[in-house]
Structure formats: structure tokens, C-alpha cells
């Protein structure tokens, strides 16, 4: 709302100055718009959290969303992970061979996949598949008055629609990340053994010896946060969707882009934090 009001100010200023907007007004309006959007998103997130962790829970809805978010994402997550693991092994081998350090391929692959790439790739893939999907579905419900209908039938959209998606995402994402970790490491192993002439047993032993519980836990913690980000962005943009196919399409795009950027941003913040605390 503030942003649009700001835009009107800019527009008036533009008219007065014959098409040359005052840059300070433009920056001011854009900043106000950004802050109010962040504020709305944060309040929405708190409301989703509050409903997700207090009864009543629509268990059937949570289960349905877990199947949608978790099970149906397995192919895309698995395929992405195997190629990322394979490419990672090749690049580490190429870089390592310059210093005669090819033997570090298994340890760097397992570290890179579990601490970073397994979770990030899963997060990014689900930002596209799930966040945009949730947003389009809820957006379509919003513009066809189904969300209003829910409220008139004494069912809160937060409790019936948003909280189940939020819970399903924060449960399904860690499970998907575990799968991505295993398949990603397997991708690295496949390339190393069949293309780079590594001994299979030695590769697996090096991988197992280097891997610690903390590496896996770091990825899983990230996955929970990414799940929260993806579900919240999808629900938020869907809930705010404007009428018509354009409105719903725009909501889906905003959800996907917003979720992807937030996945990368929170990933960096968490990585910094985990390094600081020695996790």
C-alpha cells in the first residue's frame, strides 16, 4: 500500500518535472515499499508459525501436502543431486590434480554435498517446484473466492491451508535433503570410479572416514529453514494474489524468485553461523 502511495507521489513529481522523477523521492518510495513488504511477510510468517505449532492440526491435510511436497519432489531432487555430485567430483579432481591432491576428491565431495550442496540444491529445486505451485494454487483459490468461502465455513485459511503446507515442508525438506546427500555422494562416486579410475572400496572408506555427524546435521538444519522459507513464500504470495490469470502468474513468479533468493541468503547466514560456533 505504501509503495503504491509512494508511486503516486513519484508520478505526481514526474508530471511536475516533465518526466524527470526526483531520485530521492523514488528511492524513498522504493525503500518504504520494501520495508512494508518485509514487515508484512514477517507478520505473515509469525502467524503461520503460531498456527502451525498450536492445535488444531489438520493431519490429513499435512499428510497430503507431505506427499505432494516430499514424494513428488523425489525425481527432481534425485536427478539434480546425482549431476551436482558428479560435476563436483570432476571439478575437484581437476583442481586437485594441479597440486597432486586428487586423493581429496571423496572427502571434499562428501563435505560439499552434506554441508552445502545437498540442502541448497534441494532448496532451490523446491523453490521452483513447490513454492510456485503453492502460490498458484492458493492464488487461484483466493481469486475464485474459495478462501473467503473457507472463512465463512468457520475454517481459518491459516489453519486449514497454510499451516499444513508449512508443517509438511519443514518435515519433508530434511528427508529430501538426506536423499539428496546420499544420491549426490553416489554421483561423485560414480564419476570417480568409472571415469577417474578411483578404487571403489577406498573411495567409500575415505568418504565414511571423513564424514561426521555434524556435517549431516548442518544440512538438515538448513533444510528445516529452507522448508519454512519455501512454504511461507508460496502461501504469502498466493494469499496476496491479485485477480485474473496475470495476478496468479505473477504471484507464482514472485514466490519462486523470493523463495530462491531467501534460500541462498539464509544459507549464507547459517553457514557463517555454523562456522562461528564450530558446528
Amino acid at each position, binding site marked *: 500500500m505504501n509503495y503504491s502511495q509512494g508511486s503516486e507521489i513519484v508520478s505526481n513529481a514526474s508530471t511536475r518535472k516533465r518526466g524527470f522523477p526526483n531520485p530521492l523521492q523514488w528511492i524513498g518510495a522504493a525503500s518504504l515499499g520494501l520495508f512494508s513488504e518485509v514487515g508484512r511477510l514477517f507478520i505473515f510468517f509469525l502467524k503461520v508459525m503460531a498456527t502451525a505449532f498450536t492445535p488444531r492440526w489438520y493431519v490429513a491435510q499435512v499428510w497430503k501436502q507431505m506427499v505432494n511436497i516430499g514424494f513428488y519432489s523425489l525425481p527432481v531432487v534425485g536427478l539434480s543431486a546425482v549431476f551436482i555430485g558428479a560435476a563436483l567430483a570432476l571439478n575437484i579432481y581437476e583442481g586437485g590434480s594441479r597440486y597432486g591432491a586428487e586423493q581429496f576428491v571423496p572427502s571434499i565431495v562428501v563435505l560439499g554435498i552434506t554441508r552445502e550442496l545437498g540442502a541448497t540444491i534441494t532448496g532451490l529445486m523446491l523453490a521452483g517446484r513447490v513454492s510456485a505451485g503453492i502460490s498458484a494454487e492458493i492464488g487461484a*483459490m483466493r481469486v475464485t*473466492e474459495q478462501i*473467503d468461502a473457507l472463512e465463512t465455513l468457520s475454517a481459518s485459511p491459516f489453519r486449514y491451508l497454510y499451516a499444513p503446507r508449512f508443517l509438511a515442508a519443514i518435515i519433508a525438506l530434511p528427508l529430501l535433503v538426506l536423499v539428496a546427500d546420499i544420491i549426490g555422494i553416489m554421483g561423485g562416486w560414480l564419476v570417480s570410479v568409472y571415469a577417474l579410475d578411483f578404487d571403489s572400496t577406498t573411495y567409500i572408506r575415505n568418504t565414511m572416514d571423513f564424514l561426521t555427524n555434524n556435517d549431516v546435521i548442518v544440512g538438515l538444519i538448513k533444510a528445516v529453514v529452507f522448508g519454512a522459507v519455501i512454504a511461507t513464500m508460496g502461501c504469502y504470495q498466493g494469499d496476496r494474489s491479485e485477480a485474473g490469470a496475470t495476478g496468479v502468474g505473477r504471484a507464482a513468479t514472485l514466490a519462486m524468485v523470493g523463495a530462491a533468493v531467501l534460500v541462498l541468503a539464509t544459507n549464507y547466514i547459517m553457514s557463517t553461523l555454523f562456522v562461528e560456533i564450530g558446528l
Partner: protein
Amino acid sequence: MTTPILRLENVKKSFGQKHVLKGVDLEVQRGESLVVLGGSGSGKSVMLKNALGLMTPNDGKIFFDGEDVTKSTGKTRAKMRERIGMLFQSGALFDSLTVWENVSFRLLQADRMRRKDAKERAIETLKKVRLGPDVADLYPAEISGGMQKRVSLARSIISKPDLIFFDEPTTGLDPITADAINDLIIEQVRSLGAAAVSITHDMASARKIANNIAMLYEGKIIWHGPADIIDNSGNDYVDQFVHGRADGPIQPAI
């Protein structure tokens, strides 16, 4: 004098600089069927959403059965909604649920009725709107627009409400189906003894279902009276609207 089931007192609603409702005053008595007429963009749907609690007015008060519900939340609002049915313009059926799950949604989710019992109640209610049990397991996308309106009507009456809102109940339907929907509305509202508030710009529908008619123009109720004097209202705006003339005090919305 009995307490009206619904009373709107100087209700105002704006969106930014756009003032949609500029002080609506309206009363609906128990058992009354009130039709609110108004052109496109006159604020009919906004008025209805305020009355339902889907929007909060900027000013004014809304009373349901004598209780101020203008800013009610939580249990008070839930209790009010238990006694209200709503038929949306688009039907607003949930795509992912079957017809019977749509009809018995409130029974399943709010009242936590067993699915078997809820399905029986849904099929009984579907019969009241002339739909057979064969429709119960279909999804909304598998039935026609007229059938969707009937299903939506069944959903709005299943919990035997005291007040039912109808938002453009005949929009998008052919004249025969529209008339059948009007008949069903009259029949069901009478059998429940409920009050009905319908918003429409379909005069045939208004003449058929209304005891009283109100006209909303530029955010205010400009006329309110018995349906049978609508043709002699003595109000130029009502007259122009009722006769569907382009000439007159109301400017066409084009």
C-alpha cells in the same frame, strides 16, 4: 419491535482514496428476503463482505442478532458464522474436494462429524436442491455451472442457518436454470425460516425472490421498500435501473 437479524449502521469502507461504502444503513428482519440492487462497481459485494466479517469497515457498526460484531474475532465470529450461510457468485466450491465433501465441509471441519454421517447429510441436502446421490462423489470440475450453483446452495443451507447471503446467485446461468435457482432459493429460505440477503443486478431474479428491495448507489442505500412497489418507487435512480435505461441520472459504467 423485534431485533433485526442483521443491522448495518453508517458502514463506511474505503480502499486508499477510493470510498466504496459511504455510510450504509440497512436492516434485515427474521424471515425477510431482502434484495440489494446496484450497478457494477456500486459496492454491493463489499457491503456483503463487511456484513460477513470478511472485511472490516473503516467506520460504522454491524449488528448480528443484536450483537455488535463489527470487529469481532475468534469464537464470537465463529459463533456468528455458524448461523450464516453464503452462496458465492462463482460458487467457490473447493476444487480438491468432492461434491459431498464440499456440501458437508462445515459438518466435517467445524462440527467434526463422522464422514459417514456427514456424507448422508450431504446427500439429503443435495436432494433438496434437486441433485441425485450420483453427483456426490464427483468433483466440482466434473459438473455444470448450474449444478455448481446448486451444490453451493446446498453447502449454504446444510447447517440450517438463520441468515443466508446470496451473491449474484443467477449470474452466468441461462434464464431457465436461473429461474430454477430462484425457485430453489425461495423454497429453501422459506422452509428454513431464514432471512435472506441477495445482491444482484438481475431484475427478474430480484422480483421473484424479494419481499423487500434496497438500492445501493455510490456507496449509500438510496431507496428501500417493498418489492411490489419497485415499479412505482418514485425514485429516478431506481426507475432507471429497474427499466434498464441508459438515459437517466445513473451514468453507464463504460
